[in-house]
């Protein structure tokens, strides 16, 4: 058993050393070349994928990695978009706008998390559902800042003269640069110290606390980071779509983001990109097939993909597809099931979400 394992490990060691050198370089080259070779509509599509990949990444931080069900991610995208639109239309410095589009959603996320992270699993879900649901009428009421239901338009990020690029190429570069930076930073974060913490908070809060981790603190951290990343995706949304309205953050879109995250692959960096691609491409695909059957086709695609790949598209990338399957084998109890607390579980097999800390 162990011996067989070693061989595969040794084999992939060789691949690894090759990929370690060539992989990142190749990726950078591809990302630099992509905007130059494609027609405008493709560039726009890739940029949109970038926007939603970042949004899904944020959702992944709080839900995929830290295991806290969040149905409110779209609210932070909307908030980031509104902050950006407001700043741009008031001619603020774009760097200031960007920083605010990150910090304001992060701050709101922090406030929400301070309250919500005290509650159990499904209760967090309900508090987060409230964000888009209350957010839409709230955006209408604050029409002084949000433009009410007519929304805000803001066009920025046109290509500067010196670059010699088309606008769409310039914007795609911005999306790739900002989105790429967010992905890189998040990837670094979810490996090493913080990755281990989020993982154990998701898996078992009692074990987490026994090694000196306050689950509450890290749930708040994960939620805040997710909100911050949501804010970045809102900034990118304004850059690419150039318009936001209360419709942007409707509850339905939040559900679709969740579906995109699971389809892409929970707790996976590549899965976030795939989730963003799913979010953007599937509606375009169904439009190609038959625009009047969008819902039917989308539902069918979602079910077929999950039926074939319950671990999401990213599981294709995992050798032997082992990660998710083994998790499934060992975590029998569903996440959304507070009533399961009646089970006389031990620390190891009681699902994390049900523990309310001190008895």
């Amino acid at each position, binding site marked *: 058993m162990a011996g067989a394992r070693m061989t595969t*490990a040794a084999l*992939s060691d060789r*691949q*690894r050393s090759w*990929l*370690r050198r060539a*992989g990142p370089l190749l*990726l950078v080259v*591809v*990302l630099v070349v992509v905007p130059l070779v*494609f*027609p*405008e*509509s*493709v560039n*726009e*599509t890739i940029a*949109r994928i970038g926007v939603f990949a970042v949004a899904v990444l944020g959702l992944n931080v709080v839900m995929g990695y830290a295991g806290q069900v969040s149905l409110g991610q779209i609210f932070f995208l909307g908030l980031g978009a509104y902050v950006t639109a407001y700043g741009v239309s008031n001619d603020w410095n774009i760097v200031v706008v960007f920083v605010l589009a990150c910090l304001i959603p992060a701050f709101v996320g922090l406030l929400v998390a301070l309250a919500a992270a005290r509650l159990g699993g499904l209760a967090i879900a309900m508090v987060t559902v409230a964000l888009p*649901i209350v957010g839409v*009428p709230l955006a209408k009421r604050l029409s002084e800042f949000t433009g*009410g*239901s*007519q*929304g805000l338009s803001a*066009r920025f990020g046109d290509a500067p003269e010196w670059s010699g690029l*088309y*606008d*769409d190429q310039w914007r795609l570069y911005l999306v790739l640069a900002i989105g790429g930076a967010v992905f890189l930073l998040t*990837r670094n974060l979810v*490996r090493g110290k913080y990755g281990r913490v989020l993982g154990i908070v998701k898996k078992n809060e009692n074990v987490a606390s026994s090694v000196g981790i306050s689950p509450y603190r890290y749930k708040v951290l994960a939620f805040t980071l997710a909100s911050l990343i949501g804010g970045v995706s809102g900034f990118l*949304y304004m850059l690419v*779509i*150039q*318009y*936001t*309205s*209360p*419709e*942007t953050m*409707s509850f*339905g879109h939040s559900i679709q983001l969740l579906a995109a995250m699971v389809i892409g692959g929970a707790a*996976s*960096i*590549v899965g976030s*990109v*795939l989730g963003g*691609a799913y979010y953007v491409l599937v*509606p*375009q695909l*169904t*439009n190609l097939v038959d*625009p*009047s059957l*969008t*819902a039917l086709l989308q539902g069918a695609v979602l079910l077929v993909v999950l039926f074939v790949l319950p671990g999401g598209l*990213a599981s*294709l*990338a995992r*050798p032997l597809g082992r*990660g998710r399957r083994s998790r499934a084998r060992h975590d029998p109890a569903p996440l959304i099931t507070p009533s399961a607390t009646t089970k006389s579980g031990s620390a190891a097999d009681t699902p994390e979400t049900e523990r309310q800390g001190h008895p």
Partner: protein
Amino acid sequence: MSRHFRSRKALVIAVASTLALTFAGCSREGGGDGATGAAASPGITDTTVRLGISTPLSGSTAGPGTCTVAGVKAYFGAKNAAGGVAFGDGKTRTVEIEALDDGYDPQRAKANYDSLKDDVFAMTAGLGTPTNRAWREAAIADEVPQVLVMTGDPLFSDTQESPWQLGFVPIYQNEGEAFGKLLVASGAPHKVAILSQNDDYGAGYVEGFKSAVEGAANIEIVDELTYEATDTSVDAQITQLSASGADVIFNAMSLVPLVVSALQKAQQLNWLPSWFLPSNTSSPGAVVEPGGGAAFPGIYSVSFAKAPASPAFAGDEDVQTYLAALKEHGDYPDAPAFPHCQWSWMVGATLEQAFTTMTEPTRDDFMRALRSIENFEAPLMLPGTAVTTTESGQPAVPTVVVQKYNGKGYDTVESLG
């Protein structure tokens, strides 16, 4: 662990190159250049012209959204079957419609626009304020016509702000104003309760209404409430308004089930005011009849289109042609449940009117032709209304007439009562 993510990175590259292959067939053109000189714009050849529509075909606004496509498809389907449309440049072209679903999501509407703009000559007929606003600026930058769209947002009819846009349906303010004028003209004292949708639609209606009744001594607004498009019930609002003692309710609602239940609720409370219903939720068959409208002293609505279900138009030639074409060419076998079907039929007629005066196959010339229509009586239009596109700040249909429910359909009225 690290082994996994290396191969994931490889996957990113694979995905990127797959994307590259998928789209490799396309080539870069357009991209903000727009049309120059008399060279034909995209989407038009000597034999065909292609129109794009982005509209909700799924989700909660799919009902009216489907209609916005069906009418225009039916109109040009019938024209194509008869040989095509004779353009002002002497050529006869068939009209192709490319309709995409945006699910009332602004982001998807923009995506639809991006994918259509190089293929189609003009974008038209799409329903929704946020979904049309989402790509308005891009359409201006790309110089792509976004015309005869189904939103009462005045922005689309402002020639200065929106050079490549034109709204079709009356701006919400106009519809509200028509009610207000009728009420003021009645001379009798009236107490008015207002219930409006909490968005630009409801607000526009109320704004128009208030501007018309402002300063009129006989009109008093006694209570004013809103509701959300996502609400499942307006019972509480009707209960609260019924206590206001109003004898008229100005009801700017765009959702059929809520209008029906509002009518029913008022009857249960034995509150029987005169109702003012907007043009898109006053269908006799879908709204007033199930709501028991006959119980009220009067149900008024504004309109510019003949209602096919109304007995008054049962024998109308326009209506007959329209219903037949809708079935045959519009993929719409049922009786139209939303007025948007009729409206988009008129959009087809208005587009044809512009086509016949175009002298060059360019988007520029199309906009010029479209903006020079005066008093065109499109089929299905009610007497007293017409398409006029020369007036800045006004949509293609600037006027409406007020009508009263007669138990089966609507009759145009000059005064209350």
